[in-house]
């Protein structure tokens, strides 16, 4: 009786321990392993502009919520890219939409993020209004507005300066940072002399008497404009979710390219300004200067140039270092 009691007690003890361990382990597994299906809550941050269209379609159509019932998605539209970068570093934002410039800067500095889904390629125009400004040289000593100092526009301007003026830094003292709406207003009211901007602002300025002094495609070739990034840690933890997100972006881009009328209607519903669906349709069909695609282009060229002029302290050996696996098949550059 004594021996069996001891054995019994020991068996119960082991069973309890095993149960507890399983419970703890199960909980841990649910939290930590990469087999986890999706996060419970996610924050997606983006900025203003037609370039974010694929993301906006996902938002309006609630595609993520449909794919993952119970998922809480918080959408944040911010006036500039800086809080998006900060938010990702701090962990408040999981998916961030930004230009390739800030993406590269963050990547080089160890934010440990990569592109999960590029959004588009865009030809970015340097707009001027004053008829007496005819060449880049005329902009010396004047005021040129770009989005932040890390933006692809700021990089493109340096490239233009290098090609046309022989010195990438020649116009540095003329640069001011302004976000797109402020920059457009400043250009049209004459407060600044040039505005290096992006769609749709450059088109709006074109319609109001400004003209393009230079276009970024002419210096970098066709290149990516906006991308969405997540951190390596997020990707590791929610691989399936991330891959699904990439597919949804691709899906939205297909809709924009194949059914622009429908896409335009969705965008108009999403937009807070008075832009009409017809206007949106016109914009998304200006394929020459704005193309929605998940194929990244010109990343290596941009990174190389940024490194050359001291804006980037690290260059990737291949474009694949900058993106996650779903993007590999697009054969980017």
């Amino acid at each position, binding site marked *: 009786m004594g021996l069996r009691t001891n054995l019994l007690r020991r068996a119960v003890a082991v069973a309890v321990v095993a149960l507890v361990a399983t419970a703890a382990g199960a909980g841990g597994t649910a939290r930590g392993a990469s087999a986890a299906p999706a996060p419970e809550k996610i924050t997606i941050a983006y900025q203003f502009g037609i370039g974010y269209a694929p993301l906006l379609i996902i938002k309006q159509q609630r595609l993520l919520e449909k794919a993952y019932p119970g998922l809480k998605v918080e959408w944040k539209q911010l006036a500039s890219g800086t809080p998006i970068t900060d938010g990702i570093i701090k962990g408040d934002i999981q998916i961030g939409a930004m230009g390739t410039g800030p993406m590269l800067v963050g990547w080089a500095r160890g934010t440990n993020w990569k592109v999960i889904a590029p959004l588009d390629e865009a030809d970015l125009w340097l707009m001027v209004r004053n008829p007496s400004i005819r060449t880049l040289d005329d902009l010396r*000593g004047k005021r040129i507005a770009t989005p932040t100092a890390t933006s692809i526009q700021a990089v493109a301007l340096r490239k233009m300066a290098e090609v046309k003026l022989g010195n990438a830094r020649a116009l540095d*003292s003329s640069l001011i*940072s302004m976000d797109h709406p402020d920059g457009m207003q400043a250009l049209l009211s004459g407060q600044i002399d040039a505005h290096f901007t992006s769609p749709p602002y450059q088109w709006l300025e074109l319609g109001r008497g400004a003209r393009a002094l230079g276009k970024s495609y002419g210096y970098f070739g066709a290149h990516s404009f906006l991308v969405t990034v997540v951190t390596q840690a997020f990707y590791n933890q929610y691989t399936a979710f991330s891959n699904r997100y990439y597919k949804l972006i691709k899906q939205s881009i297909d809709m924009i390219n194949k059914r622009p009328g429908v896409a335009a209607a969705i965008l108009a519903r999403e937009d807070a300004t008075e832009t009409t669906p017809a206007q949106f349709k016109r914009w998304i069909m200006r394929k020459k200067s704005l193309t929605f695609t998940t194929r990244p282009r010109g990343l290596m060229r941009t990174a190389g140039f940024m490194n050359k002029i001291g804006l980037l302290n690290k260059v990737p050996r291949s474009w694949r270092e900058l993106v996650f696996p779903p993007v590999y098949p697009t054969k980017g550059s």
Partner: protein
Amino acid sequence: MATPSVAVPARPRGARLRWGRLPAWLRYLLLLAALVGIWQLYVVWRDPSPLLFSGPRDVAEAFWAGWKDGNLARVTWTTLKILGIGIGIGAVVALTLTAFAALSQIGEDLLRMLVAILNPLPGVAVLPLAILWFGLNTNALLFVIANAAAWPIAINLDTGFKTVNPTIVAVGRNIGLSSRRLVTDVLAPAALPYAISGLKTAWAFGWRTIIAAELVFGVAGAEGGLGTYINNAKLFLDIPRVFAGLVTIAILGLVFETLFGFLERRTIVRWGMKTST
């Protein structure tokens, strides 16, 4: 001569340990070293992300690099220049208004009203308006700084003029001073402690305003100042450089405090006129 024996009083606090007996500069230096040491310990122990926080070594490197390639010097000079000119303009405005107030009731009323309306406006809040009026250039910044500086100076000067000892003014009139010389030779030096106090406040407000304004403005004049330098460093996620910029601001603060102290020692302290710390 026989010295009567007196009970020696207890040594003052801190002097029994060797700390209180060290010269002031050494005490501050040691305290500073201790703080830096704690900073380094924190970095080593907690290992915070380099995107959020930098340790003393990295900051020192970034600081040294910044001075060596001239960038920190250049941006510091840009900021100081604008600050100096802006405060100068503010001081002239303040002097004019205060002199007018000292000489007439309507001047006094005007001064009070302007101070009540304009003093509470934080400099950076005025900046968008200033840009609208003056354009996107240094003039807008100068206006903002002048506004931040003028009112503390005016308030202090006004008090200074009002609290001038009337006996001294009577002496001035007695020895035959004209009204103009009464202001320059009697009222002005008598009000100097307040003028310095106003200048110190104006400087402190001006500093905060210019750094904040540079961030809002995007660029200070043709090239960036210290605020822009820090903001840019942050944009490029170069946190050691951000800290280096902050350290520069701290050092500048110390330098100017020393300069002010020097000025005070040569004037109002020497004359026994210092009214407050």
